[in-house]
């Protein structure tokens, strides 16, 4: 919200308070200041003054120019040449009966160039204009930087003091304040004034309860207004009738949906003259961020910005015409099925059954709290204005606003809650301004339907709860002072024995719709007392029971193992395109783009590329691999994270944790000693996974397996006992092509972290090692290609028994010497006895036993 300080100061005494102090204290107390704009802080105090045009004469040599005599408080008036369109009509006027107050600029002053596009500053220099010397000028709003208006010169209000530096008259400060959802009360000048008065402990200025106008008067300075006892008059006793037509023959109002509209008031202002608003009001609206339009609309906006009560102005004649010349009868009701209306912005809108309407006999005239209808809009022909001030259910306003995709200043306020008590003041203020500025007359009484005035809210706060929550003793006087300044009406609960106040019972003022619980009051105390006055302490509370977190520990161990193995961790978008995931399966590269039942699909994605949650951990890794291969010859990535699988009949998907690994390209980084040219393949991925298994102390077994994305002949299933831990393989060549991954093998792993966590921690007890010399024996056996190396090793270990300390495969050979369909596996055996030096013949015997076993079990032949 843009806060105009001159406006705010009409309601709270801020004399002697620096802007910096205000900014600091507002920010501390929850009104975050996002920027400060100083209007006119660059204006030259000597050369930019309030002037009065006392006479206008024709220019001797030009029809489109006039000579204006300007009194700027320096004795004789100063003559300037100007082509201002709004002075031109006065060229024959001579001396003016009512001098025009203007902005007078003297030679040497710096101003914005009014004629140039954009904002360029120029220095004013005297020069003859069509033969008449002119060394000063009268300025447009653009030339002094107030707005982009350069249509004519700026005419100030009649009360502007001649000769005063402009900075003292039009200078202002606008503070941009972020209003959080609980601060709706501060979204208007009066509400912010109340907050400011409480935060800074400054007096509020008085308000005329009949008109809502500040008693000091706009723009006046240096008055010592008495502090008002309370700023809003207490709600008047409410009319309980559903129909209140005490406005007689002017209008009648009725609420048919009291659940959505606690109060509806209307008052008639006769004989308004539509036209531009005075300069001060236009300036304030502009500074506050609203565009001035014409007086009736400007006044409703002004009253709304000031009091927080959104108002709507209907053209009363149009309502009468719609009522066939009779008394307009306004009804607040839900829309009927299929009902439509055209709003002020010219859009024809379809309404639903929860849309609250303001309607008359001929149909809807406004969408309650959001926008008026085009048919009853105020226009240049309007004579009488019917002013609506009401209160609506904030949830319904928000719902309808979202449903219609229609927002407005009014909806923004009603959508955060406006108390029904505010209707009177808001409307009174607008009616008074219409009388003052548009020549209107408020007539009749207010038609007021207020079926169920809300009961006052009472909150009891035990004072010890303040300490219990904040951890510090706030002095009782400070507590009481803060709450009283915030307009809570307090009753003290006193301990009979000690006389100490133990609790306060607070009557919540109507503008505090956010307060209902004791903790709401504690927050008020804390933020006004100042968070900076709370100490920082270390928790004295007992430490909770401490527990292991195997999930977290497994994730961290996996990361460390893979980083040590030379892999880089990646983190991908979990949101993907279902069609991208389809590319994980061979031949499905052109699958349609829509969501699939296999995916958790968003209803409101930002783009088709991020429309669903990933099913596979490989998606992001393959995308990253393709991207990195454009400028790298080696990519080795891993990622840990959840994947998402819908569960039939369940609202929430399954979210298993997966580990993905992708390796491709050069096995070694390019360097001056490398150059073998080996490419990363299945065995590199397997090695990385073996590191993970070792780090987690998992007993795993490897066997040929199947994975939808992997080469059928180059896929291993990793198991631990009965549990499948996942798969390691090389990408299926078609999948590799679908991802644009080039010709090198792409090795990958897709593992189940939940299963790994369950299998982890199989501690192998320490085995004492032998101190006696070992005997080494080599063994090469030829087996069928189909025989797995793991089976050969297992057979060797079984046959070797206790003497076999270690076995290492050191060569795999295929070729003419062993014949087609066969392979030779060469093993190095380490044989060792625990208690003595092994004799050579014993080692030979062991080797022979192993050979026999291999021949028998696997049809192997020793070479």
């Amino acid at each position: 919200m843009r806060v105009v300080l001159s406006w705010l100061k009409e309601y709270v005494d801020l004399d002697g308070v620096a802007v910096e102090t205000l900014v600091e204290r507002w920010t501390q107390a929850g009104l975050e200041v996002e920027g400060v704009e100083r209007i006119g802080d660059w204006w030259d105090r000597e050369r930019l003054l309030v002037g009065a045009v006392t006479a206008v004469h024709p220019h001797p040599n030009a029809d489109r120019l006039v000579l204006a005599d300007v009194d700027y408080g320096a004795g004789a008036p100063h003559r300037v040449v100007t082509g201002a369109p709004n002075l031109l009509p006065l060229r024959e006027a001579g001396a003016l009966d009512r001098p025009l107050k203007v902005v007078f600029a003297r030679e040497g002053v710096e101003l914005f160039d009014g004629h140039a596009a954009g904002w360029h500053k120029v220095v004013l220099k005297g020069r003859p204009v069509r033969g008449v010397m002119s060394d000063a000028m009268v300025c447009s709003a653009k030339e002094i930087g107030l707005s982009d208006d350069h249509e004519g010169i700026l005419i100030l209000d009649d009360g502007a003091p001649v000769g005063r530096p402009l900075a003292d008259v039009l200078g202002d400060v606008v503070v941009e304040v972020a209003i959080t959802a609980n601060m709706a009360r501060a979204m208007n000048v009066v509400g912010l004034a109340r907050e400011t008065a409480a935060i800074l402990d400054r007096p509020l200025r008085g308000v005329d309860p009949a008109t809502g106008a500040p008693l000091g008067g706009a723009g006046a300075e240096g008055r010592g207004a008495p502090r008002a006892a309370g700023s809003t008059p207490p709600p008047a006793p409410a009319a309980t009738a559903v129909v209140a037509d005490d406005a007689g023959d002017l209008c009648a109002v009725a609420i048919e949906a009291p659940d959505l509209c606690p109060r509806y008031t209307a008052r008639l202002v006769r004989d308004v003259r539509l036209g531009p608003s005075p300069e001060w009001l236009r300036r304030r609206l502009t500074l506050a961020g609203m565009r001035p339009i014409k007086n009736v609309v400007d006044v409703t906006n002004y009253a709304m910005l000031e009091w927080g009560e959104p108002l709507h102005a209907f053209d009363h004649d149009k309502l009468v015409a719609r009522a066939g010349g009779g008394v307009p009868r306004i009804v607040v009701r839900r829309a009927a099925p299929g009902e439509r209306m055209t709003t002020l912005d010219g859009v024809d809108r379809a309404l639903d059954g929860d849309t609250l309407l303001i309607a008359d006999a001929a149909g809807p005239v406004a969408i309650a709290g959001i926008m008026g209808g085009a048919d009853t809009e105020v226009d240049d022909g309007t004579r009488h204005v019917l002013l609506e001030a009401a209160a609506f259910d904030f949830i319904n306003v928000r719902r309808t606003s979202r449903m219609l995709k229609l927002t407005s200043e009014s909806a923004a306020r009603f959508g955060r809650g406006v108390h029904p008590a505010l209707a009177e003041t808001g409307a009174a203020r607008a009616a008074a301004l219409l009388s003052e500025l548009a020549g209107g007359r408020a007539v009749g009484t207010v038609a007021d339907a207020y079926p169920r005035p809300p009961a006052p809210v009472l909150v009891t706060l035990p004072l010890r709860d303040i300490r219990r929550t904040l951890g510090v003793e706030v002095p009782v006087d400070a507590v009481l002072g803060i709450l009283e300044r915030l307009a809570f009406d307090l009753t003290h609960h006193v301990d009979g024995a000690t006389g100490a106040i133990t609790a306060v019972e607070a009557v919540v003022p109507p503008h505090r719709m956010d307060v209902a619980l004791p903790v709401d009051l504690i927050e008020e105390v804390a933020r006004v007392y100042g968070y900076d006055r709370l100490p920082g302490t270390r928790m004295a509370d007992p430490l909770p029971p401490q527990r292991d977190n195997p999930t977290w520990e497994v994730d961290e161990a996996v990361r460390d193992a893979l980083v040590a193995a030379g892999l880089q961790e990646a983190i991908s978008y979990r949101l993907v395109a279902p069609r991208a995931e389809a590319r994980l399966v061979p031949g499905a590269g052109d699958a349609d783009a829509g969501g699939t039942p296999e995916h958790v699909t968003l209803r409101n994605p930002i783009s088709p590329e991020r429309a669903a949650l990933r099913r596979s951990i490989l998606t992001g890794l393959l995308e990253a691999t393709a991207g990195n291969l454009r400028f790298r010859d080696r990519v080795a990535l891993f990622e840990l994270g959840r994947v998402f699988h819908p569960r039939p009949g369940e609202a929430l998907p399954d979210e298993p944790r997966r580990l993905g690994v992708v390796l491709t390209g050069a096995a070694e980084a390019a360097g001056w000693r490398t150059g073998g040219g080996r490419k990363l393949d299945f065995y590199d991925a397997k090695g990385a996974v073996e590191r993970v298994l070792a780090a987690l102390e998992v007993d795993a077994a490897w066997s040929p397996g199947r994975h939808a994305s992997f080469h059928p002949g180059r896929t291993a299933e990793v198991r631990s006992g009965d549990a499948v831990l996942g798969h390691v393989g090389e990408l299926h060549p078609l999948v590799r092509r679908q991802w644009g991954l080039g010709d090198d093998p792409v090795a990958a792993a897709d593992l189940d972290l939940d299963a790994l966590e369950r299998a982890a921690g199989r501690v192998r007890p320490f085995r004492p090692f032998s101190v006696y010399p070992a005997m080494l024996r080599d063994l090469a056996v030829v087996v069928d290609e189909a025989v797995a190396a793991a089976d050969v090793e297992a057979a060797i270990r079984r046959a070797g028994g206790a003497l076999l300390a270690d076995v290492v495969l050191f060569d795999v050979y295929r070729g003419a010497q062993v014949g087609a369909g066969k392979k030779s596996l060469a093993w190095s055996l380490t044989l060792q006895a625990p208690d003595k030096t092994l004799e050579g013949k014993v080692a030979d015997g062991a080797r022979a036993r192993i050979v026999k076993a291999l021949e028998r079990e696997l049809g192997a032949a020793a070479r």
Partner: protein
Amino acid sequence: MRIDEVQRQRDAALAALDAVDDAAALEAWRTAALGRASAVAALLGQIKAVPADERPAFGAAVNAARQALEAAFEARRAALEARALGEALGSDRIDVTLPGTLPPRGGLHPVTRALRRICRIFADMGFQVYQSREVETDDLNFTLLNTPPHHPARDMQDTFYVTDDVVLRTHTSPGQIHAMREHAPEPLRIILPGVVYRNEKITARSEIQFTQIEGLAIGEGITMADLKGTVENFVRRLYGPDRAVRFRASYFPFTEPSAEVDVSCMLCGGRGCQICKGGGWLEIMGCGMVHPTVLANGGYDPDRFTGFAFGGGVERVALLRYGIDDIRHFWANDLRFLEQLR
């Protein structure tokens, strides 16, 4: 006479040794001077021919000669070896400026690194990690956190919906409810790291996916002063002991009183710069006392228990630490980014 012969032979062998200049010649010399066919051996063979009274003197002379030759041999051998070593050291030079040989280097994602630092600091204060699911019910993400449907606070977070009742969590706070319901009425001290989602435009400053870390402490004596102390300790350990920390009032539906935490800008020292938009302060987390409604929803009696919660973005920690100018780097997995920050 015979003793003269011994000395003459000895001197001849020593003279020959002077000419020996390499290991092979030295070995040949040894064979010639001390071997079975050597003059010394021949002289020893003559001992029986020496008159008995001269034998002791002759024997002693031959032995002395042999020992002298052996000593000379050793000295010569040592000198030749020393010379060879010296030559080898001179010629076996390498270029020590060639790059070292390294196994391929892996690395952690910068978000993981930042999370580890944060978790370590909170672990020292007794906070344990708690994680929960990422697709949540609307109830857990909002309503149980004191944000019922159509509540104005819902405007603060643009939400991805799966169905009317199922959302991608917009914060890690649903984990607070999970943890409370799991452990009430035990006291609680946990941090909740995790991935969260917001329906926003992807720009240099905003993302649809980011990492959040929240903390939650519940007990019978937890106060806002404790919150302040805990957060101050954390911030100063993360960003440096000289950082000023500022708490100011704010609003979150699930805490009351609520605060924003600012830290004095570490890039300009608080004088004001582009990163802190001239204000000298950087907003780093939100926090507050757990709202009584949330405590009750989690199974704790708000008349007995109080608690505090805090939370902030993890990417921001890395952004500030490394001066990263664009948040979109984090999930792009570009090795040119990742390898710089590991």
